[in-house]
């Protein structure tokens, strides 16, 4: 860890870049996944279409996607935008399924009572179904965020910034300390973001607390 303190300027700059490169895609992916997940939940055609496309996109290896995106979306080959778009694609592919599953799991009785109370479908989706789906969506979001934080580092192979630079520089100059510090920082960042998302989820769904303790108590492990 000594290495980190001697190079704190560089480390802070790379960490800042890393946060932007990894979390902006999570936001973009989430915003796009909600309407698409809704579509997948509503119609059989929408379901098979979105889930198959998501499964296909998820199969693509990250380094390959970073490289062949530019000719498709018209960016330069080493544009940071490529990494952001590629990671958004992965987050979206992961979350579409989660959102669809989460909406499926909303109890029908709750939806029916909301309808009986006079909620219109659009308003009911925003104020009843979506909030009920938050715990499951959040679980998926945590996975997406952690995997995004780890994936950004792959971009450094073709010259992108972020903490992955600690690995490429550590490799070129053969400094194991820099490489190890990089791994530790990425893991720390993942743990912190994961914890913050967990906390945000608890604050967003106060009604789920009692249900959660019941669920864990009833689960035979």
């Amino acid at each position, binding site marked *: 860890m000594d290495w980190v303190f001697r190079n704190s300027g560089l480390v802070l700059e790379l960490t800042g870049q890393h946060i932007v490169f990894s979390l902006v895609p999570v936001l973009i992916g989430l915003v796009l996944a909600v309407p698409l997940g809704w579509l997948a939940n509503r119609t059989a055609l929408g379901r098979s279409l979105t889930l198959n496309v998501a499964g296909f996109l*998820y*199969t693509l290896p990250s380094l*390959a996607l970073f490289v062949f995106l530019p000719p498709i979306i018209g960016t330069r080959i080493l544009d940071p935008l490529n990494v952001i778009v590629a990671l958004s694609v992965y987050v979206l592919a992961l979350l579409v399924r989660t959102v669809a599953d989460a909406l499926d799991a909303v109890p029908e009785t709750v939806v029916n009572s909301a309808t009986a109370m006079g909620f219109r479908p659009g308003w009911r989706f925003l104020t009843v179904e979506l909030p009920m789906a938050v715990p499951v969506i959040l679980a998926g979001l945590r996975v997406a965020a952690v995997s995004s934080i780890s994936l950004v*580092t792959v971009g450094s192979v073709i010259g992108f910034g972020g903490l992955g630079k600690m690995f490429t520089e*550590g490799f070129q100059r*053969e400094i194991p300390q820099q490489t190890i510090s990089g791994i530790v920082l990425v893991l720390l960042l993942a743990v912190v973001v994961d914890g913050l998302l967990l906390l945000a989820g608890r604050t967003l769904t106060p009604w789920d607390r009692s249900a959660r303790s019941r669920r864990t108590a009833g689960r035979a492990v």
Partner: protein
Amino acid sequence: MTYLGWLFSSENWAGSAENPGIAQRLVEHLGYTALTLLIALVIALPLGAWIGHTGRGGLMVVGIANALRALPTLGLLVLLFLAVGLGLLGPLIALVILAVPPLLAGTYSGVANVDPSIVDAAKGMGMRGPEVLFKVELPNALPLIIGGVRSALLQVISTATIAAYVGLGGLGRFILDGLSQRDFPQMIGGSILVALLAIVADLLLGGLQRLLVSPGLQQRGAQAGPGRLRLIRGGAGTDRARAA
């Protein structure tokens, strides 16, 4: 799409003595992938089956699988390169480390999630522990086990590509060599090959799953759409989160 010319040149496929072509790189990539999966299966299958069968250490498996998702593959590759040096051993260790958790989690949650009444019925028919495991639990766990193999396979194909950075052969060479020579058609051609390899490999395993898994299980899997999240304890089957 002037980029695609590189892919369809027979010269690039054949290569030369000092500059291996696409065919040889493809064989290398497949070789690393097969070797890694073989080693990882030998480690993960017995361990996962034992943990799932006895129920001991299950939480640990899920915890390790989750924690490893955050581990940056490039960092691991570089670290092992610095520790072991140039050659196959470093990348191979890294690949096995990344392939074991999805296999372990798939096998464990597959065996642990077999309907208890089925296991009871098998015991009631007079089956002993090993018999229950091999004749009942493992066949029933097959969908999740193959799910784990598919995640591991994608992980290994992706990471083997990145391992070109620390000097490994395989299809990743075209991306890295193309980058250093500013030969973008070569880079893009290489990345398309890697993507195709991943897609074909995943489709083949999907087909294998249909062949191997008992028809009764496949039907139940299809019906269990909405409730699937809660059906699978341990959650390994639902998130194939990628780390490469």
